[in-house]
């Protein structure tokens, strides 16, 4: 059986890749995709612990995380569509009207 720490390291790497995507990319859709990658990393952590602790709570939480992720992705994409209609671009560097 694969030790728990291996699962957690894989999950940490996936989370770090998601963080890199959010920080480095300028396209708003790719930023959202990186946020989904981060959420999946957390899901992997939960399910791994659920298996190694002989408990189902981890999988229940993953169910709710997936639901919330779906709702958030839908709303975020709707916002991106509205922003695109106003600014003709999904580049987050162009959405800087509040900048001082």
């Amino acid at each position, binding site marked *: *059986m*694969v030790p*728990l*720490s*291996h*699962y*957690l*390291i*894989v*999950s*940490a*790497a*996936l*989370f*770090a*890749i*998601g*963080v*890199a995507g*959010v*920080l*480095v990319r300028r*396209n708003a*859709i*790719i930023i*959202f*995709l*990186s946020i*989904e*990658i981060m959420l*999946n990393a957390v*899901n*992997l952590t939960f*399910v791994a612990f*659920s*298996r190694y*602790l*002989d*408990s*189902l*709570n981890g*999988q*229940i939480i*993953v*169910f709710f995380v*997936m*639901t*919330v*992720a*779906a709702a*958030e*992705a*839908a*709303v975020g*994409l*709707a*916002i*991106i*569509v509205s922003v*695109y209609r106003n600014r003709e671009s999904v580049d987050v560097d162009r959405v800087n009207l509040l900048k001082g």
Partner: protein
Amino acid sequence: MPAVLFYILSLVMLAAALLVVLQTHPVYSVVFAIISFVSLAGLFLILGAEFIAAAQIIVYTGAIMVLFLFVIMLLNLRREDIEERGVSLMKTAGSIGALVLLGLLGGVLAGKISLGPQGPFSQEVIRQAGNTQAVGRALFTDFLFPFEATSVLIFVALVGVVILAKKKL
């Protein structure tokens, strides 16, 4: 056998996630994300969470990624302009930050993790009734209120999306 499968699947998953972040065309990014999520569903199957694996494929790749593709096609996004080639300050800072985070998380998680109290649902107990039945029973008894609350949440999100994406209010 499950150990070899774990390493292969996690390698595929991490490589695909890296390619999501690194390459420029949005549609290819979504396709690599789909590959990553499907291999993650494989990892869930190795961990014995069959309901979550099926939900991952149906909800994440089947609904959320398709939504991303719809929006990309609606906005007609092309390959990103490569005007910002070369090393910029933000990119270096972001990459270094992610590496530091990976080092911190990996260093903490690779050490000795003291597990909490063990629960009742060992693999033998779950295998008697099936993972889906066990999860369903827990969802409808102990977690009934959050379960019903998520339906309200999805409804609110639905109304919000329709209003936000309308051309004329």
